[in-house]
């Protein structure tokens, strides 16, 4: 148990995984000598050498495509994409190769590739540095998608992702990178990553993941002051979705608000809302409400505070689902 930042927790997870399994290699732009632009891989090249912490040429398809070749050779590559918006040049390799090779080879070739992506907005960056592309990958069969929200989960889930024999797209909430907490290291839980009820409540279920979970907790405190009891669920695994945990909660509360930074249309919130409706139709007192970013390109940084779902919009979403406010539209999303 020691107090550490999320960056350090991720760094420790990488180090522990590399010690644990010598087939783990890290690949990415600037991850070696520099330790990554966020320093997540700091000092690892010194410790493990340039053959395990590999600075790569500036080409994301190349990084992911060579990771596929390394997996064919029996390695367990952990790729860093420098920023969310630079994932797309690798999209073809991710969707047509990484996601499909286990199926294509009928289980003979494993693709235990972890793709770490610092994602989401709120850090005042220029274009392409604040994207939330998780729905693209959740929609892609063959991939698993994780999004930790806490310092502890950053460690634990990264270890789980690396240990997993399937490819995992691992979304790191970069805006929470500097948060710190006491964490336990060394343990890698077996089994599937589940959603977690991180705060129990009776009135409304509020579901989020990654960077928004912090704000969900704030919302719960604020709502409590008004006598409203929120049940907060941190999704953790975006694919597979732990629908049991979600449905259990909604069957109890009858109302649900789903929060993410990506735009609503065909986003993860739509899938969650639909599955909840499928599983809890007779329990629902109101249509699921989504509080999300807008269906727009990520805006310039001085506008992002208007784009990102904040405390007020989440609480408005709660009001809507409680029928204390007129319309879901007022949440600033659908």
């Amino acid at each position, binding site marked *: 148990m020691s107090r550490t930042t999320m960056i350090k927790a991720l760094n420790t997870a990488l180090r522990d995984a590399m010690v644990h399994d010598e087939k783990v*290699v890290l690949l990415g732009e600037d991850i070696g000598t520099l330790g990554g632009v966020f320093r997540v891989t700091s000092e690892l090249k010194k410790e493990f050498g340039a*053959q*395990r912490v*590999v600075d*790569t*040429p500036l*080409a994301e*398809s*190349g990084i992911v*495509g*060579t*990771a*596929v*070749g*390394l*997996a*064919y*050779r*029996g*390695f367990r590559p952990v790729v860093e994409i420098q920023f969310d918006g630079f994932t797309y*040049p690798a999209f*073809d*390799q991710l969707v*047509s*190769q990484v996601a499909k*090779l*286990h*199926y*294509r*080879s*009928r*289980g*003979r*070739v*494993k*693709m*235990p590739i972890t793709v770490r992506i610092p994602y989401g907005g709120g850090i005042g960056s220029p274009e392409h540095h604040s994207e939330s592309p998780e729905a693209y990958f959740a929609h892609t*069969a*063959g991939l*698993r998608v994780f999004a930790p929200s806490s310092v502890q989960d950053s460690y634990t889930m990264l270890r789980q992702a690396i240990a*997993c*024999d*399937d490819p995992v797209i691992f979304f790191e909430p970069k805006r929470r990178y500097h948060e710190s907490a006491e964490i336990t290291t060394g343990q890698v839980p077996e089994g*599937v990553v589940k959603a977690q009820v991180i705060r129990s409540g009776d009135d409304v279920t509020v579901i989020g993941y990654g960077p928004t979970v912090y704000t969900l907790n704030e919302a719960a405190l604020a709502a409590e002051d008004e006598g409203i009891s929120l049940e907060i669920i941190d999704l953790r695994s975006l694919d*597979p*979705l732990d*629908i049991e945990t979600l449905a259990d909660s909604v069957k109890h509360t009858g109302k649900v608000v789903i929060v993410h930074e990506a735009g609503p249309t065909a986003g993860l919130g739509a899938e969650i809302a639909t599955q909840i409706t499928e599983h809890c139709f007779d329990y629902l007192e109101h249509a699921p409400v989504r509080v999300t970013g807008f269906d727009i390109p990520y805006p310039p940084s001085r506008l992002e505070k208007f784009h990102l779902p904040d405390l007020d919009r989440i609480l408005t979403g709660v009001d809507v689902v409680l029928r204390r406010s007129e319309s879901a539209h007022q949440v600033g999303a659908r």
Partner: protein
Amino acid sequence: MPIVSTQRMDLEAGSLPTHRLLTVNGEREPSEELDPYITDVDEAKLADFLRDMMVLRRMDTEATALQRQGELGLWAPLLGQEAAQIGSVRATREDDFIFPSYREHGVAWARGVKAEDLLSVWRGVTPSGWDPNEVNIACQQIVIGSQALHAAGYAMGIKFDGGTQISLGYFGDGATSQGDVNEAMVFAASYQAPVLFFCQNNQWAISEPVSLQARTQLADRAAGFGLKAWRVDGNDVLAVHAVTRAALEHVRAGQGPAFVEAVTYRMGPHTTADDPTRYRSEQELESWRAKDPIDRLTKHLESLGADVQKYLSRGETAADELAAALRQAITTMPDPQPTALFAHVYAEPHEALAQAEHDYLQYLEGFDTGESK
């Protein structure tokens, strides 16, 4: 007024020589550079190449016939490229790992893949026909150029774990336009990884001539990335063999990645769905027929005074046997069961998909028992 000339580039033009050891008449041309690489290639070995190429050609025509008869969904013939494939793959070590495209049937077959396993994919019964780890050859790649990066990555792995193998990436002339192939050369050069890119320039990417993809020799392009590059007459099995050995030696000695451009020709359609008469002339075809790799090797064996008839009939017997067995295997190959839909999507448990499978199978059972629709 077309802006792109569709004229074939002069095969002899460019900064690199096009290596050749056998003229189209089968005469042996000496080569100071390459002769040392084929001192062990005696009559018996040449006869083996001949048999390989004959069997391959038969497999190919048989596959085309099976497709026409509805037994395969599609087939991508390698007709004309037998020398490029056999000459190169026979130069590899068994533990060298190969990343092929959808047309390298000869490469896979020479590695011990059964013809019916190859064709099973084209029949549409399975996503892949063999275990890559058993034969050291990856699944055939359909997305143009992707596998070049896999080859580069595998080679990085060899370097990282200290292996002595070489990784080979096969692709066509059209593929050289893809970002992935170029990035593969960047990565290979950067890490000086033990990879050989083997490009079969068969002059066409479906209906597009190679002159649309490149205004220089493809080998020159590779050299610009810092790869050691060779250009070879791809219809000359001996030269292909020699050049591939030279290239593999270069790579195995740790001198960096290499590139071979084998200049050949796709004699058949792109696939059985293609009609090449729409974009190329009978003359062009004719001129390449004169360079046929099997004829050329036959003539060469003749020029050596070998009993060619014996070798030809041996080749034909082998081809007949393969064709008959292949036909038998393919026409009796059962269709897959719906459970195969869900198998191997994930390596580890995935509850939602398991549930979907369970529900679906139950639903299908309903039909069988006539219970419900």
